[in-house]
């Protein structure tokens, strides 16, 4: 089987970020929150501080590593919530049809009509800022694409012979959805989920930048960017490294999504066979 360059590069970048996040306590030089030292404030990158230090003298290298934990948690968990909501609603709507389908389609269109970041902003304004609220806000606002995909797949799959056969053999509706429909639509769902993860990382950065996400002093790439605003001309490294981290993570996830699409797409699979 030929594995595309997208998959290799994207997978490598994503794996690097995951490793950085998981091994942060061992890789980091200092504690990201506590080790503020105004004597070292705004040191440029060098031997002692690889990525330099910020206005409070904290090691940016260490903060970027710990920031990966927040970004990955938010990206993966919120996208999982989105995927579960989208698949449950879309799959059941496509399979059952009728008023439930009308209701779900209407809801999907409603959610699609509101820019998801604005929606998340509104939710964050109600909830208290913090990791849990961020997960809820981002997990409830980006399921509409997954939902549409799941619904369309269910619509086309439910006329397949094996779904009809399952009905004849006495399968219940839920069993048909779980064993017959879901495994057959998993490929595109995974692709959309991976791409959505990149979107969630970006959305977390944006919300934290606006002060509605992770609260300082805890390191999140978005809040680090926000803090670095004032020094962008005098100490550009404070904003460059968190920005680079966001860039690498999102690029990695998008390439990974594209690469997965190449091997999971039914048409790609047909070409292989």
């Amino acid at each position, binding site marked *: 089987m030929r594995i595309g360059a997208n998959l290799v590069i994207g997978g490598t970048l994503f794996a690097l970020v995951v490793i950085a996040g998981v091994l942060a306590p061992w890789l980091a030089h200092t504690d990201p929150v506590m080790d503020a030292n105004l004597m070292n404030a705004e040191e440029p990158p060098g031997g002692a501080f690889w990525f330099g230090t910020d206005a409070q003298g904290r090691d940016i290298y260490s903060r970027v590593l710990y920031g990966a934990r927040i970004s990955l948690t938010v990206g993966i968990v919120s996208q999982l919530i989105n995927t579960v909501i989208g698949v449950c609603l879309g799959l059941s709507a496509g399979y059952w049809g009728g008023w439930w389908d009308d209701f779900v389609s209407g809801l999907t269109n409603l959610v699609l009509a509101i820019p998801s970041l604005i929606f998340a902003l509104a939710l964050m304004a109600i909830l208290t800022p913090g990791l849990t609220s961020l997960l809820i806000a981002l997990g409830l606002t980006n399921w509409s694409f997954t939902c549409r995909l799941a619904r369309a797949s269910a619509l086309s799959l439910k006329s397949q*012979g094996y779904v*009809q056969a399952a009905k*004849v053999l*006495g399968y*219940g509706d839920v069993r048909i959805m779980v*064993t017959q429909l879901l495994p057959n639509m*998993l490929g595109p769902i995974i692709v959309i989920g991976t791409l959505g993860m990149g979107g969630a990382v970006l959305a977390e950065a944006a919300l934290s930048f606006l002060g509605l996400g992770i609260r300082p002093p805890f390191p999140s790439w978005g809040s680090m960017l926000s803090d670095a605003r004032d020094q962008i001309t005098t100490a550009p490294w404070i904003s460059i490294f968190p920005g680079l981290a966001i860039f690498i993570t999102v690029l990695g996830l998008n390439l990974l999504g594209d690469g997965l699409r190449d091997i999971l797409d039914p048409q790609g699979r047909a070409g292989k*066979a």
Partner: protein
Amino acid sequence: MSAAPLLQVDDLRIDLALGDERFAAVQDVSFSIGRGETFGLVGESGCGKSITALALIGLLRPPLRLAGGTVRLDGREIQSLRAAEMRRLRGKRISMIFQEPMTALNPVSPVGRQIAEMFVLHEGATWQEAERRAVEALASVRVAAPERRAKDYPHQLSGGMRQRVMIAIALACSPDLLLADEPTTALDVTVQAEILDLVRDLCAAKGTAVLMISHDLGLIANACRRVGVMYAGRIVETRAAEEVFRAPSHPYTSGLVASLPLLGARAKEGRRRLKEIAGVVPSVAGFPHGCRFHPRCGRASDLCREDDPGPTPLPGDGLVRCHHHG
């Protein structure tokens, strides 16, 4: 033999709704199948064979609708059961195999697991036990190396092999009745005979009755004890299989028998052109007045154009719907 047949269908009527109009796609269909008996339904495409089978297990979907008649399984009416009760019958007491073994299996699940699912679903078996019984079921449908095959995905199997798997699934729970809808039509001729033998042997072993649906009169006559010939939504003749061949009573049945190619000794009697029945099956929306076969019938008279013939008993538990049968 118990008094009540296993399956008793009376005056089955299936409506097709097109816009505001309703047409009877199947009408006055009555037949019965005894325990372990093989009953054949034969007829051209579009005469209502398959939807009759679907009606028996309550799976008609709009625009088709069960509009009348009764279906009794072991004397109990099942046509008006609630959805959940009907679902418990499906696969456990009434099972079905299909024309297209290519599409009737889930492509992302190993075949052994698909068989095992039946034991889990209908008999509450544990997955471990079910997987073991699935291998036995594969062996019973004469699949070589069943342990290895159980792990195969459908696309790794040939058409005949897939139909064997489908049979294993359908017969997993030893149902009382197997609906076989054109089970061999999509297969090679050599494989057809093997599959039919398999169905016959397995059903005999399990005491399963079979409703065999086909457009192939030869196949039906070989596989079944009794035959119902369907035309335009009605059963026009019900007879013992050998009687149908020896002395077809309805002119449509005569036409079908005459249109069979002759092989071997009978072919030596003389080369002759293959007979055909003139015309096509009328569409549901345009069933002719009177006898539905009269526009294509050589024996048609004015009576046939006016009056719809009712069922006439024939000797030996047969029925025919024709004014001029014989």
